[in-house]
């Protein structure tokens, strides 16, 4: 009994201490000799290791992006039509269509169309994510439909604010007093649109349909802003807000932009598994969007 228990414990201890090392990969025919000199062989495996060590992960990134787009984004008629339009454009400009396909590495027109469908789908990853996570992202980025006029000339600010309070149209105010950057047109803004923290406080404190009673100032850009809040109910302008949020460069708490966050979300949603430590390390050096969620 004691011997069995001791043996079992020793085996478990050994197992726990040995552990497993991070996996790396090699080609299936890694021992195939490409060059032989005397008894020495240069194998496909040797070449693979050297090529991987060069750190070019572009083929992996392309394959990953394709896999995410193909599996996370539904192929709609709109996407098919956009891809087909691209095929038609290419076909119209090619002098020898068959040669073009061959030189571009496509076996057929269908293969090109499939690739282009995927390319269109790749462009939809971020907006699809924003649409799916709209409530969360709207809470984070606080989109508002606003009219904003930016003014850098301090002498005219008070006069412009008075006119705004009196109900003068913002586009007219922009023409008269503005610096041309924010021209008073109704647009979607977020707290990452670059108006500045103090200005954004004013936006949030202003009721829907009202003009902010005080001109707000962004010291970083030395700019004054006249603000009118058109709509603060984020679900009422969801479609417009989605494209604004998708294009935002705002970073989340992990330092990921919205597009990186979207990619990482879908990557892990489609059951992402990474099985080569060298490649994974190179991917993470490029962007944290390739991080697997444990």
């Amino acid at each position: 009994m004691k011997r069995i228990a001791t043996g079992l414990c020793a085996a478990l201890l050994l197992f726990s201490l040995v552990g497993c090392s991070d996996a790396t990969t090699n080609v299936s025919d890694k021992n195939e000799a490409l060059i032989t000199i005397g008894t020495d062989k240069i194998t496909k495996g040797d070449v693979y290791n050297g090529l991987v060590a060069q750190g070019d992960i572009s083929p992996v990134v392309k394959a990953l992006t394709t896999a995410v787009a193909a599996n996370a984004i539904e192929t709609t008629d709109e996407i098919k039509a956009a891809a087909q339009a691209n095929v038609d454009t290419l076909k119209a400009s090619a002098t020898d269509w068959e040669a073009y396909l061959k030189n571009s590495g496509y076996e057929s027109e269908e293969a090109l169309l499939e690739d282009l469908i995927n390319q269109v789908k790749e462009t939809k990853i971020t907006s699809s994510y924003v649409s799916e996570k709209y409530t969360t992202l709207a809470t984070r980025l606080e989109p508002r439909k606003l009219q904003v006029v930016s003014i850098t000339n301090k002498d005219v600010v008070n006069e412009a604010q008075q006119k705004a309070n009196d109900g003068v149209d913002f586009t007219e105010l922009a023409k008269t007093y503005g610096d041309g950057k924010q021209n008073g047109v109704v647009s979607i803004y977020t707290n990452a649109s670059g108006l500045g923290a103090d200005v954004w406080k004013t936006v949030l404190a202003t009721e829907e349909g009202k003009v902010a009673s005080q001109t707000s100032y962004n010291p970083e850009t030395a700019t004054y802003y006249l603000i009118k809040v058109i709509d603060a109910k984020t679900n009422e302008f969801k479609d417009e807000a989605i494209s604004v949020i998708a294009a935002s460069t705002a970073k989340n708490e992990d330092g990921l932009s919205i597009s990186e966050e979207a990619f990482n979300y879908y990557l892990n949603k489609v059951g992402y598994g990474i099985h080569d430590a060298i490649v994974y390390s190179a991917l993470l050096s490029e962007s944290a969007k390739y991080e697997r969620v444990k």
Partner: protein
Amino acid sequence: MKEQIVTIIKKFWFVILVGCIFCSFAIYFAWDTNKDKIPGKSVGRQDIIFSAADVNYTADEYYDSLFNISNDGVKNGISQLYLLLEKTVAQQLDVTKEMKEEVKASAEAMASYYKSLYGTHYDSYMNMQLQMLGYEGVDELEEFLMDQTRLDQIIFEYLEKNDTLVDAVFTKYQPRVISHILVACDDPANPTDAEKAKMAEIKKALKDKEFGTVAAEYSDDTGTISTNGSLGLQLNNASLVTEFLNAAWKLENGKTSDWVKTEYGYHLIKIDETSQKKIMNDETYRATIISQILSDNTDLKKKIVWDKAEQLNVKFSDETILKEMKAYIGIKDETEDKE
């Protein structure tokens, strides 16, 4: 049976309890150690790099892509294969005891250099560089340096048989071993009395002492004090100030110049050696000459390696790779001529 188990449990309950606790810890420790490791995955005989949805991206696919990526019209795979060919050809040469000692010293110097550049993470940088050249990593640094030494030997043997290349460098660049003594001046156009006095003192000292001894004693060039004023072998394309360069290449072997004014001050220049034979007999100087020959003849090193590989009866298993390798090296493919 049941009674027996109960009896055993009653008798050894403490041992069993301790055993269970120990096992639990061991299992937890094993899980904790391995939970962040990258797990391997294979489908059939193919290693998988990543999986996502129904996609398994294999190492074979990655190899094909990497091999065929072109840089300046050359496939990555072919240039990588050439590096491995170079390494394998070098490894066919015998190693002497002197070579081993020399390589060991070079490896230590190189490791120190990388440490000074990259700190404690120096080994990861060295690993990356060496892996690209087909070595496992820093553990094979000596092997890499030995291969480079053997490669130099192959190139030298080739040049001994093809000495016109050496002659051409001596004709074009007129290599010479040069020493100098510098009296540094804040304003070389108006040397101070102290600077003038130092120049006079140096001239006087040279009447009784060797140039190198005086250089070590008086020269203001801190970079050459340890070499007794020697700048080593220089070619006429060296990055030396023009006045120095012009004066040095007017001098004959063994001669010393008068004071030469440059932006740094005043120099006495001595030509220590110009003989082709003597320069080529010195290992360090020879390396400079070989480096210049290889720089002037970009594909020469590859051709020398190829010549050696052919002597060693190199065999390619794939005709396409052979053709691409020959094109990369710059060798005309005879089979194409026949076609």
